[in-house]
């Protein structure tokens, strides 16, 4: 299927001008009520925990001014011990507040993010684009894994550190103001140029970090490609070329990282230099003020302690900047998933939702049209022209046509993996888009061509068609499909594990299991999309005979490019360039000597006994 044109909505959102960082954060937080719950208490605790950071400078000031400068000239040891004890208690209390803050934060964050992860996961399944664009799945996985992880890391680590340090900056300034407003002015003046410098750094560092992220993503793509394509690379002996390309990607990542490292080190160091400037200024001006009697000795010394508290917030901001950006980018990507409207919606909760009326299934198509949305300046690609058609209950329909003739689109519309852009499909009279998914998926089952299996036993895979099915029934299904001897050849019978994506089995064998899986679901309408394309002829014919017997009394639609399926069907629909050009039984169509007859002739030529 033309995947690129099948609007992959999430990626379209990704390409759009992103929301501002703040908007993203606010929207992100709005989506995670679990995080907001009790947030005020946590913030209050954070404030208390921050207060603890100025305890030491204040204690130093008190001890010098009240403990050492006692008028008598003798230190007042008792007072000092009281002061130190009180301070120690405050330190202890702030540690307790710190514990509660950290714990609450981590609990709220992880609870919120786990819920978000699950929501995004479900939403991705609800987006029909998944089955269009196979190549983009890896990127979607990262949205429910690493993107969430970066947010978690930021919320609990970067975010807290940033918050506490910002608090530290404020509270240190407040204490300094009490001690000596002129010195605060001096400190602010010393740090003023740094603020402009930091803005410059921040801009460039942000750009550098974005470059790093891009390079890392490219590197991941390149490595993944070399792993997935290992067989081809080996068979064509292009290891050297592949390695050279990887080396380039590695190099580019290295250079981007190094650039970011140089910038962040400069930013980090600038804080140190300016604090030196501020300290020197405080010493000179402070002593002069002290000589004038405008500041006590203890306050001056405490001031020097407090100035150092300006350094770490700036340095930590440098370190956290990258995390902030990564987290916001992560938020953005998750929001883009949740913002993408599923193009096929389950009417489950809608007021006019219906069940499929009971009885064997018949279908009516009324002006059903499908086109992929226009891309760039091109016209929309019409894949299915307005189609009117009735499929009577209990008929076995075969759909034939060349690649791109619209037959897979037809199957996807019937199973509501996609919705038509115009027209209505009725299933036993009920409009398909009003049928609850629960009802639809129970009675209409499609077997796709790729025969995807989960990394589990054959038993578990087949049981997905009918949860809770017994081992005996699974075995029976294979017997009824005429596959008993195949099952016997397996090392562990139905408990044989199929490997990742089923790759421990051959492509044809995977299709056999997929077929059994649909078969046990016992649907009223079975749709087969080239479901046995990789199976050997003898087995295919055997399966077909079995299915013929088993689907009797039910409706089935089989898409096939091996025309053996068509020969046995009650009715054949011949698709050509998005239209049904012929319709009838095998014999009727052969007599007409049209498209079908031509297709069939080439098929017979390919399979005739020589």
């Amino acid at each position, binding site marked *: 299927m033309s995947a690129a044109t099948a609007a992959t909505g999430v990626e379209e959102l990704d390409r759009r001008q992103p929301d501002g960082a703040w908007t993203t954060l606010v929207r992100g937080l709005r989506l995670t009520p679990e995080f907001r719950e009790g947030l005020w208490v946590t913030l209050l605790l954070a404030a208390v925990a921050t207060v*603890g950071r100025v305890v030491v400078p204040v204690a130093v000031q008190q001890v010098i001014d009240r403990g050492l400068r006692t008028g008598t000239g003798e230190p007042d040891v008792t007072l000092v011990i009281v002061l130190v004890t009180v301070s120690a208690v405050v330190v202890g209390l702030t540690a307790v507040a710190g514990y509660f803050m950290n714990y609450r934060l981590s609990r709220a964050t*992880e609870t919120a993010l786990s819920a978000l992860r699950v929501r995004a996961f479900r939403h991705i*399944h609800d987006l029909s684009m998944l089955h269009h664009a196979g190549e983009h799945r890896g990127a979607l996985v990262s949205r429910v894994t690493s993107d969430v992880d970066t947010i978690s890391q930021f919320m609990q680590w970067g975010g807290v550190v940033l918050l506490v340090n910002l608090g530290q900056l404020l509270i240190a300034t407040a204490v300094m103001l009490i001690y000596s407003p002129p010195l605060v002015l001096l400190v602010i003046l010393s740090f003023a140029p740094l603020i402009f410098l930091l803005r410059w750094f921040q801009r460039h560092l942000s750009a550098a970090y974005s470059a790093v992220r891009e390079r890392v993503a490219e590197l991941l793509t390149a490595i993944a490609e070399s792993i997935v394509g290992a067989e081809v690379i080996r068979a064509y002996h292009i290891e050297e070329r592949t390695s050279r390309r990887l080396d380039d990607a590695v190099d580019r990542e290295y250079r981007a990282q190094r650039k970011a490292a140089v910038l962040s080190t400069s930013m980090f160091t600038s804080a140190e230099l300016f604090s030196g*400037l501020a300290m*020197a200024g405080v010493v000179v001006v402070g002593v002069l003020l002290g000589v004038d009697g405008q500041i006590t000795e203890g306050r001056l010394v405490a001031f020097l302690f407090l100035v150092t508290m300006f350094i770490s917030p700036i340095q930590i901001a440098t370190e956290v900047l990258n995390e902030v950006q990564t987290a916001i980018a992560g938020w953005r990507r998750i929001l883009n998933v949740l913002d993408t409207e599923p193009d096929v919606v389950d009417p489950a909760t809608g007021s006019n939702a219906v069940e499929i009326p009971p009885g064997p299934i018949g279908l009516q198509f009324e002006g059903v049209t499908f086109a992929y949305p226009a891309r760039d300046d091109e016209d929309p690609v019409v894949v299915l022209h307005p189609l009117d058609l009735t499929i009577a209950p209990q008929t076995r329909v075969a759909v034939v046509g060349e690649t791109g003739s619209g037959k897979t689109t037809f199957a996807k519309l019937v199973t509501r993996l996609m919705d038509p852009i115009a027209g209505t499909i009725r299933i036993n009279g009920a409009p398909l888009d009003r049928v609850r998914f629960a009802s639809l998926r129970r009675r209409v089952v499609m077997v796709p061509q790729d025969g995807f299996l989960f990394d589990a036993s054959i038993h578990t895979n087949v049981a997905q068609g009918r949860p809770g099915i017994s081992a005996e029934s699974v075995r029976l299904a294979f017997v009824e499909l005429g596959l008993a001897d195949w099952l016997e050849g397996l090392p562990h019978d139905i408990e044989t594990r199929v490997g990742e994506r089923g790759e421990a089995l051959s492509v044809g064998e995977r299709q056999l299991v997929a077929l059994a899986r649909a078969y046990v679901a016992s649907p009223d309408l079975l749709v087969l999309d080239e479901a046995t394309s*990789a199976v050997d002829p003898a087995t295919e014919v055997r399966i077909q005979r079995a299915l013929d017997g088993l689907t009797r009394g039910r409706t089935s639609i089989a898409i096939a490019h091996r025309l*053996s399926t068509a020969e046995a069907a009650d009715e054949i629909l011949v698709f050509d360039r998005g239209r049904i050009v012929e319709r009838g039984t095998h014999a009727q169509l052969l007599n007409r000597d049209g498209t079908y007859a031509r297709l069939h002739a080439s098929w017979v030529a*390919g399979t005739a006994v020589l």
Partner: protein
Amino acid sequence: MLGKAIKTEPRPFAVALCGALLYAATTVGSAVVFGRITDLVIVPAFRTGRVGAGTLAAAAAAVLGVSMLTAVAIVARRLGAWVMQLRLHATYRRRITRHYHRLPMSWHRNRSTGSLLSNATADVDAAFWPIAPLPLSCGVLVMLTVTAVMLVMTDWALTLVGFSVGPAIALLNWRYNRAVVEPATLIQERRAQVSGIAHESFDGALVVKTLGRESAETQRFEQHSERLRDELIRYGRIRAIFDPIMEAVPNLGVLGVLAAGVWRIQTGMLSEGDVVQFAYLFTLLAFPIRAIGWVLSDMPRSVVGWERLQKVLRAQPDTTDHGGRIGRFGDVRGGPAETDLIDVAFRYESDQVLHGVSFRAPPGRTIALVGPTGSGKSTIATLLVRLADPAEGAVRLDGHDLRLLTRGAVSRSAAIVFQHSFLFDDTIRENITLGEPYSDEDVWQACELAQAAGFVRALGSGLDTVIGERGTSLSGGQRQRIALARALIRRPRLLILDDATSSVDTAVEAAILRGLKQADLPSTIVIVAYRQATIALADEIVFIEAGTVTATGSHDELMTRVPAYQRLVTAYADARSAPPESR
């Protein structure tokens, strides 16, 4: 690991270490300067009410000087350490990815793409994580030693305070590290599980949807997500306990210094400056000491990462070049090759996939491998191009055991087209030439032969159209035809087609087969096939059942002699002539 890292990147490490040592010196130095300024400038000035301009200038110069030296130290330390770490990342990413290409396909098959990807990325990052803070840690050790010596030389009471705070922090760090090992490991595991489920579930989205299993899948994902969440909260709780304590202990130390200091000042044993100096030094030391704690707590992760890297790097390429004595033979771009299998057995894990397989494809002939689903045909195809070596027996090309050929010798003579066509995220031209200097004319010719020219021409940019993730997507049949062109352009002496036209329309397939017959390729062809038309191309049929050759001969011979063969290839025709009993 650290030793090896230092040996690989000695220069940046030396720079970083010098920076760290200078940093240690300036940190202690700044506290000393602070103490001296208190004693020599602040205290006299406040006592006498006077201060000399020279004294003040000297104090300011000392502060500025120390802070500038600190800046230099930080730059050297951080840049040195970072460059070292980043270079190690680059080196090991290259090493790992190169090694992947040397490891046997069986090794690849037993590992998921995800785990190989994380070996080359996340595991490399994790392994060298402690490199960046390593010089700082060395510096901190020096700082601590110097502080200890200074304490001992200054006063026993302060020494007592310092020597109780230091070990307390060490003990806390140790306890913390022990407490987080288990949750940290569990988190890694559970994170991998969550990601694995997401991968699988999205891969199988179509199945999930067609069977209406979205809710069941979400539930499965939720269960694992919640298990991960619980462990993260447990980890968060441990950190919530230790972090504030680790912050409080140095503060308590400073308070201790104040109390003890004042008492010692009273007894005349210490100056005010001494007390300020150590109080300040303790404040400065608090952060680097915690940093060491973080490094230590990341060590287990790093060790795991390093071990994973070693496991990959130690894995033995089993298709080794046994001396690689015969390398030049492949350059003979002469006529068709000859290939034969002699009593070949092959096992996949414990399953016997092939046993006693022997057949010969004489030069210029076309051999069809025919057999039921799962009989081992594809495995034979991969053995022919040495994507794996047989467990027993030998696969030969022009009479040479493949194991005696140098790397690349086989691919110079043979080309395979797989059932599942893999295309690179690149232009169509690059996908066909794979970087070899073929002319456009050659490329088009190969496209014609593979029946790909038509649709390639219709694409916006022709051969320059980028396909794959960032470009146009092709249908399965189109992809197969590009893959076929890739093989044909090489005019291989041995061409292997593993059901390579399964997604192509019957008519197009017929055209491809006609083309191959007429093209007069200098090739011996081995073709895995079901359809009569394809089989008809073959000079000889090798019939395979349950992993072994049960018959060889011409189609006509097998039709009369081998009932199983006859049943297989005439299944469609039989079905046509004898429609299912009841209608």
